[in-house]
Structures are given as C-alpha cells and as structure tokens.
C-alpha cells in the first residue's frame, strides 16, 4: 500500500504567548509536527512495515516547515514534498485543502492519511474537504486502522460508540492521536533522514488560482479566555474537607 500523509507544522501550544491589541504574539521558532499527524505517520509506518508499501509525506508551509518534514522522514517516511509558502498568507482549511487536492490530483496512492484536526486551531476540516474535492471515500476520527485484502478497515470513534468502516482504495482517512504513540526518531533515523529526498514546490507550480485561496474564514483578532473566578482550596483532615465541600455544593453552589 502506498500512503501519502498530509502533515502540518503548528505552533507549540505550550509556548508562552501574549495578546496585544488583539494580536497574538508567540515565539515563531517554537513549532512542532501536529500531534494528530504524527499519529497518522506512525500508523502508516506500522501498516507498511507489516504489509509492504511505502510512506510519503506532504506539507504546505514556510521554509521552517522543512524541519517538520525531516521529523517525519526521521520517523521512517521515505520521501517528502514541501509546498512552500511565505508564511504570511492568510490561509484557512479550505485554502490548504485546495492546494493539497491539486497537488494530489496527479499522484498515485492507495491511502491518503490526515490528522483529524490541527492542534492549534482544532478545525478538523481539511481532510473531509480533500476527500470531497478528489471524490474519494473517506472516514474521519480513526482510532484504529487495519489492511484486509486491499481494503482499509477503519475503527472510528463516533458519538456513542465505535464504527467499523471498510473503505476500498484509493481512500482517505483522518487519524486521532488515540490510535498509537508516535515513535521518537532515533539517531539512525535522524541521520538517514538527511539523505532522503524532499521535493520542493510552490503553490503557483501547482496551477492553483491564487485568488480562490483567499481564506473565507478569517481570524480578525484574539482575546484571552475569560478567567474563572478564583476558587477555594481545601486541605486538612480528609473526612472533614470531604464533608465541608459536599455541604458547600448544596448550600453555596446549589448544584446538588
């Protein structure tokens, strides 16, 4: 099976940030491979190690995104595609989906694998958009993948249970990080990644209409999340504080 995994560079959610006049100020150097995409790469590697095939990754992002691609190559992916941007475009999921669909339209693959959402925006839209643009059967929020007779069997987390879905190939799947623990690249992997091919492309190479890429969903400003009122902390003899809080839930908070 041939996998192409779509990976994104995202800001590290643990990095300190400031909001000034509605603008978000963060250390632009602190970026990571989106955790959900790392799980997608991991699962593709596990499945190809078991059933044969290979794994390539594609990433749309600024020059710095080459680090994100290297990370996936160090995990074990064979090849990377870097669709370079300036980094100052106001792209949304729909812009990325159009670029990816146009990139993928002349590629060969059995399975396109995505993260179920970006860790920084939690949008969760790009995978479904690409599936529709390429007219592929798809499943989202996968927590387990298996290959059976050239079919992809997806265990997806639904609202009240897990759905087992069988997809013919070619198909698309979006992955939850609940599916595995992505491997940490070892030294050998890191060394090997330096010799692996990364093909660099630009959005205009792909013949995408730049005006159609203008985001339809625009963040106009950021604000801090309203802080919760300071609570009370109870320390001391367990039975006493347990009783005290139970009482307060009744008389003060009125939630019993």
């Amino acid at each position, binding site marked *: 099976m041939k996998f192409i995994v779509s990976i994104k560079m995202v*800001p590290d*959610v*643990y990095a300190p940030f400031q909001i000034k006049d509605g603008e978000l100020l963060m250390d632009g150097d602190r970026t990571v491979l989106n955790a*959900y995409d790392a799980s997608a790469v991991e699962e593709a590697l596990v499945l190809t190690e078991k059933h044969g095939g290979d794994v390539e990754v594609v990433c749309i992002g600024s020059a710095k995104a080459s680090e994100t691609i290297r990370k996936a190559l160090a995990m074990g992916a064979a090849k990377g595609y870097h669709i370079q941007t300036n980094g100052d475009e106001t792209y949304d*999921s*729909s812009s990325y*989906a159009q670029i990816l669909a146009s990139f993928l339209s002349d590629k060969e693959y059995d399975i396109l694998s995505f993260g179920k959402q970006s860790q*920084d925006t*939690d*949008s*969760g*839209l790009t*995978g*479904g*958009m690409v*599936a*529709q*643009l390429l007219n592929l*059967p*798809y*499943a*989202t*929020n996968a*927590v387990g993948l298996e290959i059976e007779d050239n079919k992809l069997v997806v*265990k997806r987390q*639904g*609202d*009240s249970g*897990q759905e*087992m*879905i069988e*997809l013919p190939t070619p198909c698309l799947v979006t992955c939850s*990080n*609940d599916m595995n623990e992505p491997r940490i690249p070892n030294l050998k992997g890191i060394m090997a990644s330096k010799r692996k091919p990364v093909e660099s492309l630009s959005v205009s190479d792909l013949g995408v209409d730049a005006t159609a890429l203008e985001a*339809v*969903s*625009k*963040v*106009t*400003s*950021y*604000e*801090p999340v309203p802080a*919760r*009122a300071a*609570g*009370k902390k*109870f*320390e001391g003899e*367990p*039975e006493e*504080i*347990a*009783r005290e*809080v*139970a009482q*307060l*839930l009744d008389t003060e*908070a009125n*939630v019993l």
Partner: protein
Amino acid sequence: MSTLLTYVAISDGKIKRSSLEVLSHCKSIADAGGMACEAVIIDENATSYTDDVQKYGASKIYTVEGDAFKQHQNGSLLKALTKVNEVAQPSLIAFASTEGTKDVLGALAAQLKAGVVADVSSFNFDGTKVTAQRPMMAAKIMGNVNVTGNPVLVSVRSGSYDLKENPATAEVVSVDVTVESGDLRATLREIISATGDTIDLNEAEAIVAAGRGVKDEEAKALISELASVLNAGIGASRALTESGVYDPSLQIGQTGKVVSPQLYIAVGISGAIQHTAGMANSKVIVAINKDADAPIFEIADYGIVGDLYKILPTFIEEIKKIKN
C-alpha cells in the same frame, strides 16, 4: 428573506439536546434580523420528531427518511444535506458539533462551495456574514472569526446556548433522497457501542471524571457510586481511555468530547491543557487530587487536596445524606 437552517441530529432514538440549543439560538438571530428559522431532520423516523422540534421555533421542518439514515454514514448524510440545501436555499446552516457533524462538515463545505467555521462557542449572523468566537491553542485563547459564503456552515460546541422554547406551528416538508450503493462506497460493518453507562456526556447535568489517580477496581467502584448518587455521567481522561480502563467514548478533552455540565468533578486528574480544553466551561468544577500543585486546582471552584481513597467514601456518604 435569508433563512437559517439548523440540522437537528438524532442519536439512539433521541434528539440531541445540543442541536436544540443551536436551534434556540438561530431562532433568536432570525427574530432579531427578520430572517426565517428552519430545521432539517435526517433519520430513519425523521417525521416522528417534528412535534418536538417545532417547540423551538422552526417555521419549516425538512424531513429526510429511509433505511439509509438508520445509522450514521457520511455518504448518505452528505447526499441528504446537499439535497436539502438545494431545496431550502439557506444562507446559513448551523450544526451542533457532534462526531457525526465533524464527519461531514469539511466535505459538505467543499461540496457546496460554502464558507465554514467549526466548533464555535458563540456566533452571530447578519444575513451575509457570520461573526464567531472559537477557542484556539488548546482553548487557551479565543479567536474572533469572520466567515462569508453562500451558504455559511457553522458548528457549535455543546452547552454554548440555553434551550429556549418558542412554540410555532411548522410546515413539514418531506424531501426524497435515495441513497444508492454508489453513493456510499464505504461499508459500515458494525457499531461497537459503549457499554454500561447510558448518560450522554454532552447532555449530562453532572459529570464525574476519572484520571490516572483512579488506579484499581476499588477506585472505579467509588467513581461509579459517586456518579450514581449524583445521577451523573462518567467521563475519563486520556490516561484511562488509552489504557482501556474506561471506554474511549468517555474521553473528555481536545481529542475527546467537549462538555459543559452544571457540575464537573475531576478525580485524580492533573489538569493538562488538552484535558481542560474539553471541560473548562463547566459551571462548577470540583477537583480531588493529592498533589496540592496540580494545575487542575487553578480552574477548580472547589479544590480538595487529598487521597481520593480517603476523600470519596465520606464525600459520597455526605452527598447521600443531603440528597435524602
């Protein structure tokens, strides 16, 4: 006249309360701006829910029925929503942000060439443009977002709006959608339902959530007992769904469910941002943790520092007494 269309989701034979929250909000927007408020139900027995839906102010309800809509499948849902969009021509389609919605929102936006914004915590609509707020960066930051398009699709986090009855007599319009095997391509083999607990976390008034501190059967039994005394749903952190101690459907947080009950009791949960992203909007938060410096205490209204094995038995007894 612009129309706001709310997709009313049905799950396990019940209307999802979160979709009625969205419908209630759409009704207020429609009334304020002189727009029409309509709804769509897509289910094997869609018509049987119209009476309950019209209580929330929809003036027209589209129904799509048939065996193909017995269980969630993205192919059939997409086809039905595409058809209803054609018939209703709404300016905005609003959804509750369920896993079912998340499964189709991106594909539907691409199919309809619509504007889209997912998982908002509030929104407004002026007839052409949606302004919304959505949590970002693991819910550490709020983003103000503008979205245009025709239509615009919006999905809303559960608990963002209160239910507001607004009885109207709705015109019911049945829309025929035939789903052929070519529409589906994917085959739903089976659904492995969550066992035991039947309280839907998105609708629960109270939730008792267990974390890694809940180590053995004894602690699990205490969690179950507390939940039963409070008539609460049971939730869990990723530490416990990952290790199989609780069903994955019960995971709360960035990867799991977003909940906002009246009362949330976090037991043995440290309060990682990816967990609090899913519960920080609960009305009253109680945390029980033996580590006085656990980050969960920063957002807890009532923080109990102590060993859960010592705290819970008395806590449960005391609540029982109060309840009687």
